[in-house]
């Protein structure tokens, strides 16, 4: 399988603190890769470096073989990489549909064409399909801010898929979501992967969620990759157990 994303020797330090310390891995077309690790192991910093929210101190990032190290978030998104954030990041004053149209519109035509073109950038149908896919149809016209936490998480994920990205990075999609909603979310993500062939990387605390969703898991500890393997391999690795339970 050909790698969509290659990260090589990525390093990020803040002053004297090294948050990500020489991380390398690959993401393959059509897979769901999980990244787990205890709090403060550098998972979110890793995402922020890949996606341009932070500039890495060293190392390089290739997307389909092209070096994209240090690109801006906008540029990364235009290249087909989208993401969700650990904390809720929807646009509360916009309706659910508007949130999704927004997530797709910047990928349609030039700025000037968008100004003089249709108000929805021709995306209403696509947005409604996505809303339907994430089972939010009854809320399509509600303000995103009025949704429950779990529903907002679903919307957040839906937005990440709206522009038909090459790769989606999900930062703790399950955090704070209750059990019923969690099953829903997992099932939808899996369907996204199976039906639409979406490739994605998931950072998660919730081991069960990761283990049942992902085909491959990377374990990070203190900014370094501890091991990579299938969920079964990870679960039985003594080093992982020690990292999680030892300290």
């Amino acid at each position: 399988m050909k790698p969509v994303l290659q990260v090589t020797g990525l390093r990020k330090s803040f002053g004297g603190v090294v948050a990500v310390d020489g991380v390398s891995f690959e993401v393959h077309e059509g897979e769901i890769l999980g990244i787990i690790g205890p709090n403060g192991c550098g998972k979110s910093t890793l995402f922020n470096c890949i996606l341009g929210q932070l500039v890495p101190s060293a190392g390089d990032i290739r997307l389909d073989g092209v070096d994209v190290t240090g690109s801006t978030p906008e540029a990364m998104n235009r290249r087909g990489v989208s993401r969700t954030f650990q904390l809720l990041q929807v646009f509360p004053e916009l309706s659910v549909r508007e949130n999704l149209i927004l997530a797709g519109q910047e990928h349609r035509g030039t700025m000037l064409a968008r100004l003089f073109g249709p108000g929805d950038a021709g995306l209403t149908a696509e947005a409604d399909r996505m809303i339907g896919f994430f089972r939010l149809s009854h809320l399509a016209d509600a303000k995103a801010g009025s949704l429950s936490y779990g529903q907002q998480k679903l919307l957040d994920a839906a937005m990440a898929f709206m522009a038909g990205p090459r790769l989606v990075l999900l930062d703790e999609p399950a955090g704070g979501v209750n059990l019923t909603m969690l099953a829903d979310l997992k099932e939808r993500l899996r369907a996204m992967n199976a039906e639409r062939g979406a490739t994605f990387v998931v950072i998660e605390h919730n081991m069960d969620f990761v283990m049942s969703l992902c085909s491959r898991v990377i374990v990070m500890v203190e900014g370094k990759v501890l091991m990579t393997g299938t969920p079964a391999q990870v679960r039985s690795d003594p080093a992982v157990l020690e990292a999680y339970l030892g300290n």
Partner: protein
Amino acid sequence: MTEVVAPSPPPSPPVARAASGLSRRLDGVLLTLIAGAVLLWFLPVGMGRYGTYVLTLWLVTSIAVMGLNLTLGIAGLKSLAQAAFMGIGAYTTAILGTKFGVDWYSCFLLSGLLSFAVGLLLGFPALRVKAHYLAFVTLAFATLVWLVFRNEQWLTGGTFGIANIARPTLFGIRTDGALAFHRFVVVVTLVLALALWWLIRSPWGRAFLALRENPIRAASLGVDIRAYTLLAFAIGSAYGGFAGALYSPLVEFIDPSPFALSASFMLLLMVVAGGSGYQLGPFVGALVAVALPEWLRFTGGLYLIVFGVVVLLLLIACPQGILGLAERGWNALRARLGAGAAEPSR
């Protein structure tokens, strides 16, 4: 965390907040704008020149407030310089018109263009600094522009100002009379308001809102923060310039005083008092600031204190402005009158 099943979506508000529906259809805002223009076309008949003048001044001010509402209310960028842009437009029109005999329409376009360009430049600090720091950069800019208006007498007439600014001619019809000029301003205001209506309902408007709500998330969705920040500033400023281009022929005289920092404060007050982010808010806000003091003159020498107290109480009662209060009241009313099942939405 407890999961609550969300109530059925709240009914969309009457004063269509830009947020609740961005598609271009015949909505409340559009209807109000067109109906309002028709009404204002006929309203001053028999009103006397003073009443007509105040109405016209209200509309001209509304244009400047519309621009600031785009920059601040829609895109969330705090600017304390709108009166300075109004000044740039007013002086451009006055100087080109009186010294070089340029016709008003060219002056109008150039005023908007120059304000757009200067707004674009002022937008650059906005890329670096956020929130109140940005407000203070624009505050400094507004004062510096005022100093230039006052000090560069060779260009701006300095403290003596520029007099005898001509009013425009439309299809050979002169607009020297109060009513004719008022109607001219009604048309220009309608065109500018419709343009803004179109803009806010375009993907740009959605991107501006995203900028206000959550710029970091917006960037990760491919929204070009840089371009949209600069555009929000520049377009808002251009509206300030357009307003200035109408202010000059309205008063037929300009000097630096209406473009001082305190005037920028007043324009900001109008945005918030009317309802920040509501498309009809600027008209309401400008009505409060332009017409309310005139109405309050019956209270005698204390009318400005009364005005201050009214505004203060208004803001305490409804920090989202008059249209915010109207929306809340309307929603509550709908909820009470509608099916008993519907809860009042917050």
